[in-house]
């Protein structure tokens, strides 16, 4: 039997961030990863010979800048290439393009609606202000509002003070963003359907909600958080794919003294009389530790690795109620040639950015209607990038890789996920894309379709939810993942959680991992 100060279950990006911070504080840390490589959903793989993909998560923008700085990730190989534009092709051959260049962007918006071009800057300012308002909250361990413990009362008072110091108008805008649907929020700004839909799309990502459902405006804001510290709409692509984000964090953690073991599946977290003693690996190896930190999602951690019998009843109930409802899929294509969009034929700068299949809000809502009753969207929302345009090493010379994020593909699809349904999803994606880029069918050399069931099976994310639990208001802040247990602690003494199932939630953000490490070290958050 070996012994460590801290064992971390799961080598996803949050587990690795947590390990790095703990190692930096002088702890002897061991990370145990079930798969043969670290990274969880942030990983790159040569799926077809010569073609490398960010198989699951595929863009970077939310990764906290303090983590990049404090762990010196660029020194460990992190290199982010900016995505330069978003193109929304429209039926009938027109398009809406959003460019990083302000004037170019404005001219393009004005072509669709002079009023929208006017409103756009103001809209940007409002979201920017809101993101700034929320930014300090991302680094907080949410206090339990029912608590009587002096420290939590103090933190509650601090939080109340923070909110009370917010300008009233801004507070009300924040409330609107928390409670509105993205469609209603955008309706109050814009009139152009393509613009509203492309913006609304970031409000539905990872959720099982349509753009007209209240709560989606917050998800939209969540995706704006990344724009804060860089350029406006600073979505980027990691050189080498998202696996290199994980590799950089792992390298930083190792350099700080953390040990990382892959192909080391944890079978259970070893609990004795209400205390975590360590973990037991599949195969029976026992590893003792002072503390155990789980980067797995709440259902997997508590109902799987800990076991219901070791948990207080009401806590177990809360975890059971925590909603996952994965709704997104990925289609990865190896291409013999670049797609040529009818609205913007041939090669061009637009292929270095994102392409969004979101012609109207009604289109997105209809995609959701299918999913609501257990169907794959017949005409799905898609967010497409061609990483090989930015990083040629991703594909053989002259060839390309295309990464397509697809929604909705409900985890609970009628009849369950089968090979036939997986291929049907792939066909729906290619057929829809071919309406805008007719050469896509002949350009495809290989196709990989990743369903929510695949995400669950391969990465271990329950129900394939990319955020380790829906980002809805009732599952956020002091309710994430369960009331009274939002400060990275758990009812099991010595067991902590650091996955994105905790505050502030998903995306390749790393905030949960960092917050958990600091909380465990006893630092005030």
């Amino acid at each position, binding site marked *: 039997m070996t012994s460590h100060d801290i064992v971390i279950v799961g080598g996803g990006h949050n587990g690795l961030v947590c390990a790095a911070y703990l190692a930096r504080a002088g702890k002897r840390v061991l990370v145990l990863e079930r798969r043969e490589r670290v990274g969880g959903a942030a990983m790159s793989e040569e799926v077809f010979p010569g073609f490398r993909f960010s198989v699951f998560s595929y863009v970077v923008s939310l990764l906290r800048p303090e983590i990049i700085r404090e762990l010196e990730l660029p020194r460990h190989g992190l290199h982010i290439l900016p995505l330069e534009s978003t193109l929304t092709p429209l039926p009938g051959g027109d398009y809406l393009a959003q460019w990083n260049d302000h004037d170019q962007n404005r001219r393009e918006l004005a072509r669709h609606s002079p009023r929208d071009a006017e409103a756009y800057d103001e809209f940007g300012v409002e979201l920017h202000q809101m993101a700034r308002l929320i930014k300090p909250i991302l680094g907080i361990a949410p206090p339990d*509002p*029912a608590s009587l413990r002096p420290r939590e009362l103090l933190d509650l008072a601090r939080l*109340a003070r923070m*909110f*009370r110091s917010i300008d*009233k*108008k801004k*507070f*009300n805008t924040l*409330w*609107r963003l*928390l*409670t*509105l*649907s993205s469609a*209603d929020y955008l*309706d*109050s700004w814009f009139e152009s359907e393509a613009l509203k839909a492309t913006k609304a799309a970031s409000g539905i990502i990872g959720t099982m*909600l349509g753009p*007209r*459902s*209240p*709560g989606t405006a917050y998800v939209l804001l969540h995706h704006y958080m990344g724009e804060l510290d860089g350029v406006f709409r600073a979505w980027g692509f990691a050189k080498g794919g998202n696996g290199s984000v994980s590799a950089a964090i792992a390298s930083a953690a190792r350099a700080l003294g953390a040990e990382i073991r892959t192909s080391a599946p944890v079978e259970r977290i070893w609990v004795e009389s209400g205390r975590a003693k360590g973990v037991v690996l599949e195969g029976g190896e026992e590893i003792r530790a002072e503390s155990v930190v789980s980067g797995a999602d709440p259902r997997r951690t508590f109902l799987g690795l800990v076991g219901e019998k070791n948990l207080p009843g009401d806590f177990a109930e809360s975890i059971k*109620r925590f*909603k996952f409802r994965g709704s997104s899929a990925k289609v990865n294509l190896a291409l013999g040639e670049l797609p040529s969009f009818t609205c913007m034929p041939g090669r061009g700068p637009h292929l270095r950015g994102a392409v969004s299949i979101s012609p109207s809000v*009604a289109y997105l*809502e209809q995609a959701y*209607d299918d999913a*609501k*009753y257990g169907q794959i969207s017949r005409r799905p929302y898609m967010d497409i990038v061609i990483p090989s345009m930015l990083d040629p090493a991703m594909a053989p010379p002259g060839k390309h890789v295309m990464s397509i994020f697809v929604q909705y593909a409900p985890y609970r699809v009628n009849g369950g996920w089968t090979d036939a349904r997986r291929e049907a999803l792939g066909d729906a994606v290619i057929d829809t894309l071919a309406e805008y880029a007719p050469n896509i069918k002949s350009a495809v050399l290989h196709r990989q379709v990743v369903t929510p069931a695949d995400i669950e099976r391969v990465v271990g994310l329950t129900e394939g939810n990319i955020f380790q639990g829906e980002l*809805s*208001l*009732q599952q956020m802040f*002091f*309710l994430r993942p369960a*009331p*009274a247990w939002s400060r990275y602690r758990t009812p099991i003494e010595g067991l902590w959680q650091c996955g994105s199932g905790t505050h502030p939630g998903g995306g390749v953000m790393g905030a949960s991992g960092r917050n958990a490490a600091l909380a465990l070290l006893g630092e005030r958050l």
Partner: protein
Amino acid sequence: MIHAIVIGSGVDALVAAHVLARTGKQVLVVEERPPAAQDFGWVPPQVTGALGLQLEVQAPDPWATALLPDGGKLELWRDMRRTIESIRRFSERDAQRWPGFCRRMAALARLFEPVYTEAPSDPLNLRLALRVRRLGREGMVDLMRVLPMSVAELLDDWFELDALKGALGAMGILNVQQGPRSGGTAFRFLHHHVGSPEGVFRPPRSNLSAILRQRPGVLFRVDNVTKIRVEAGRVDGVVLDGGEEIEAALVVSGVDPRRTLLELADPAWLDPELARAIGNIRRHGVAARISFNTSIEGNVVLAPSLDYLEHAYDEVKYGRTSREPYLEAYPSPDGVEVHFQYVPHGAKSDLAAAARRLLPGLENAQADSILGPADLEREQGWPQGQPYHAELALDQALWMRPLPELAQYKTPITGLWLCGPAMHPGGGVAGAAGYNCARAILKETN
């Protein structure tokens, strides 16, 4: 001399008029149409107490008779044990859970009772925070979880019986362009529970308007207001249809905020940003009212499952009338009134035939009137046909109702106040907005 002019004949306008009149003010109500024969919603005891009223409250028992797809029915009674027996015929598990659910919901609704009978307070106000903390952990967690939730999620947490979930879930979507799976509908479900006894999830109906219309102390005039006169930022009276002008330094409008401030008053008095926000107040009308000349027992509900309601909503999203609508039929002074949801603004389908086909007992009844959202807008003055004047949703509730700048019943025009259902606490609570508005006026002028 007239001290105050109240515009509108809604229940809130009548309450505001009488509360003001009791302080010795000469109050004139200019009513554009006769008051409702029946008012929907809980009447807070503060309102009846302040005016010394004895109401006739209709509280049918069973409070809901839910129709089942196989022709049977599920009856929900005021008596908890009887309801449990009803539910038990279909689900033992749900029957056991019913009392716990009722207790938890009543605890939350009780929190709103005092909040609804005063002007909305700042959300970060300490008194409110203490009130919330007094709920204890279970109550606080319920509150924070439930408010933003969809009513479908809330009910799925507790129950398995579709008919029960449908009948309850209907209160989450009543008069709103959302389906039971939309966020915030659990709050609306609670809103419609406030003031009701534990285990009763239908607001009562009363004759509050009819009593107030009969009552002396207030002057009435049947006419249309065409203009609210403003001089140097102060209101100084109204202009009636024939051109007659009536002076008063206090004008209280029960008409919706948009028409009050952008049409009756000159919008030039408003900050352009506020004028734009007023124009953006959400107010979709989604339901029709049909009157039949027959009679019916109790409150008959057609909402057999949450999926049924969700499908009904899907159609209105794209501008179509639900083929399988949510229906609720109840006795009215003239026969039977049917609430038919969802109907888009300007729909022209044969609603009465659909209601006759779907509701037993109406097969041979004659429809005396069929009012879709556009008709309700014209005949009742409900903007776009929305009876609450402003959609009741979390972003337009409490201190945000209908907009943070207007939530204290006051407008930027001195002497012009708003008292209709677009104001806190909103439609579904009869007279509370009028009562809160009148008290705010008295507080400021005394």
